[in-house]
C-alpha cells in the first residue's frame, strides 16, 4: 500500500470524525437512524472535501488531534480573561482616555490552527485587536499603548496564552 494513499485515507477519516461530532452536537439525539444517517453523510462529505480541510503537509500529529482536556481549561481561562478585559474597557469608554498605537511582533507557534486561535484570543483580551496575521508576523492595534518596542509589546500582549497553546497543539 502506498504511503500517500494511506495518508489520504487517514485524512478522510479524521475529517469524517470531526463531521460526525458536529452532527451529533447539532441534532442532539442518539437514535440509531439519526447516527446511521450522520455517519453515511459524514463519510460522503469527507471523501469530497478532505483536501481542503487538511493540507498535504502538516507538521505533526498534534496539529490535527489536540489534547481535549486542555481545551476546556483554555476555554475557562479565556472566558475569565474576557470578563477582566471588559471591565478594563469601562473607564476607557466613559472617560475617553485612550492612546492607540500599532505594534508589530512575532509568534513562536508552528501550527496554523494555534496561530489563528492566538490571534482570536488577542482580539478578545484587553485593548488589543489583531489587524493582520501573515505567517508568524502579527500586526496589533493597541488601545492605551505602554510601549512600541516589538519584543516587550509581544511579551505584554501574548501573556500566558502562548505557553498554554503550546501545550495543546505544540
Amino acid at each position: 500500500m502506498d504511503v500517500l494513499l494511506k495518508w489520504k485515507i487517514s485524512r478522510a477519516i479524521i475529517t469524517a470524525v470531526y463531521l460526525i461530532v458536529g452532527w451529533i452536537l447539532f441534532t442532539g439525539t442518539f437514535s440509531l437512524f439519526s447516527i446511521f444517517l450522520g455517519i453515511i453523510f459524514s463519510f460522503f462529505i469527507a471523501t469530497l472535501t478532505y483536501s481542503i480541510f487538511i493540507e498535504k503537509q502538516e507538521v505533526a500529529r498534534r496539529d490535527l488531534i489536540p489534547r481535549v482536556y486542555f481545551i476546556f481549561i483554555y476555554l475557562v481561562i479565556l472566558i475569565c480573561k474576557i470578563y477582566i478585559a471588559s471591565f478594563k474597557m469601562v473607564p476607557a469608554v466613559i472617560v475617553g482616555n485612550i492612546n492607540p498605537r500599532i505594534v508589530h511582533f512575532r509568534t513562536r507557534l508552528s501550527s496554523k490552527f494555534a496561530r489563528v486561535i492566538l490571534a482570536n484570543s488577542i482580539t478578545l483580551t484587553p485593548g488589543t485587536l489583531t489587524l493582520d496575521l501573515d505567517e508568524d508576523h502579527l500586526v496589533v492595534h493597541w488601545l492605551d499603548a505602554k510601549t512600541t518596542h516589538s519584543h516587550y509589546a509581544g511579551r505584554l500582549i501574548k501573556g500566558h496564552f502562548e505557553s498554554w497553546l503550546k501545550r495543546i497543539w505544540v
Partner: protein
Amino acid sequence: MILVVYIFFGMGIFFGILGNVGVLKFPDIYTRLQASSKCAVTSLISILLACMFLKGLSPMTGKILVITVFFLVSSPVASHIIARGAWERGTTPWRRKKSQ
C-alpha cells in the same frame, strides 16, 4: 442560584449599553472595533451563560453551549476581517494630539 442568573442578565445589559456607547463615542474605525468586539462578546456570553444556568442540565444547555463556542470563534474573526479590510485600504489610525 437564581441570583447568579440575575447577575449575568444584568451584566449582559450593562455591557450591551457600554458597547453601544463606545461605538458611538470613539473617534475612528479601529477604536470602535475595540469597543464592539469586547463589549458585544461579553454581553452575549453573559446572556447565554445566564440561560444555561436557568435551564440546568438539559439538551437545551448543550445547544446553547454550541452557540456560545461558535460565537466565541466567529466574532473575533468577523472583527478581524473588518479591521484587515480597513488596514489594507490604508486607513490611518487615530492618534492623540501631542499638545494635550
